[in-house]
């Protein structure tokens, strides 16, 4: 009996903490802010990888970048774009949600380009070329899915 009660109490606590977790989930603006910050760190990781002194160091930075790139689609929940209420600073175009397949393809292309670098890290010439491809993939998403930078 005690065990059952204890179990029930634990279950309630667990449920409550999940529910609380949900209730303190990010607001749309927090999602945008975290996304912008993440993108900056992402670009920083790629740059650090391209300038790393050793292939090992480059590999570590690259792993961070790949992990982020695979999270890109999940960082764009509906309601966090230009024109959405509760969001003041976003450059995400609504096309992201109008053309989800194209958006995912562009994000996947970024992950693929990063993994291509990983495969040629030992060879400087090949790695430089692969890093340049990553730069193009920034534009792959930004040209289609990012709106103008405007004055605040």
């Amino acid at each position, binding site marked *: 009996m005690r065990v059952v009660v204890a179990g029930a109490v634990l279950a309630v606590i667990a449920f409550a903490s999940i529910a609380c977790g949900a209730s303190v989930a990010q607001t749309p603006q927090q999602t945008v802010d975290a996304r912008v910050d993440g993108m900056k760190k992402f670009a920083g990781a790629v*740059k650090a990888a391209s300038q790393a002194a050793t292939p090992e160091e480059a590999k570590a930075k690259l792993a961070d970048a790949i992990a982020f790139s695979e999270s890109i689609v999940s960082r764009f929940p509906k309601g966090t774009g230009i024109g959405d209420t509760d969001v003041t600073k976003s450059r995400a175009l609504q096309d992201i949600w109008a053309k989800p397949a194209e958006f995912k393809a562009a994000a996947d292309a970024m992950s693929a380009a990063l993994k291509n670098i990983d495969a040629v890290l030992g060879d400087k010439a090949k790695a430089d070329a692969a890093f*340049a491809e990553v730069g193009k993939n920034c*534009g792959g998403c*930004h040209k289609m899915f990012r709106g*103008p*930078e405007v*004055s605040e």
Partner: protein
Amino acid sequence: MSPARFLLVAALVIGAAILVWLGVPSRAHVDIPPGVASGAPGMAERGAYLVRAGGCLSCHWDKKGGGQPFAGGLALTTPFGTFHSPNITPDSETGIGGWSDEDFVRALTQGQGVHGEELYPVFPYTSFAAMTVEDALAIKAYLFTLSPVSAPRRDDDIAFPLSWRALMKGWKLLFFTGAAPLANDASRDATWNRGRYLVAVGHCGECHTPRNFLGAPIGSQALQGNPKGPNGWKVPALAGAKAKEFAAWSGEEIATYLKSGAKPDFDSAQGPMDEVIQDATKHLTDDDRRAIALYLKSLDGQQ
């Protein structure tokens, strides 16, 4: 005559004089040096390059609307209304096929059309005024090698009173000092001078220099950024105290950006600057891109 009556008459006389002045077209004088002509050998080849450097295609091509290069038709939205770029292919009916060398130089460097009408400064003649006559005519020579495209002018949508072109005479009086080909600064080397010339005729300042309420670039703040640029884009400063971000770019990074659009932070050019790179700067020589970079670096005092 009472003083009040005198003032009224004086105001009417002055007003009438201004109206007459605005109403009578007066063609600006164009000085073409002897021996310089668009028909001279080699001019068209030279012009093909200058058309890139001058960024003509970004406006004179309705790429997204399926138009032909240089046939115009692109809608340019400004705070003063919507303008449509004209056809600059050598079609005699709808393009510039009937234009003389003088007509072309006058339009490019003095802002007057073939009938002596004032052009709106949405056409960056205020920047092209820095161009040499030889370069202007080389551009004409190249444009005249193109196949003529029949593309009638699309009407502009400008609110009164600016829809009255003659008012641009007054605008010019305030903000335009006439054709003034950029002379070399003897205290600087050839690369710097080349860079300055390319930045001028490439009309970088049309977007990167802030404008006053009458749409004129503010000369004292040249290239210091424009909070309200084309299509609402915030255009970054390339010079002055606000150019902190740009000042961190090396000359080589600037040159690379102008070639491929790749930024030092791994992002790439978007929006209007992406068009500039695709239509203009990526077609320039490495030396010219470096010259632009060197000149721009000299503006932030970090040369």
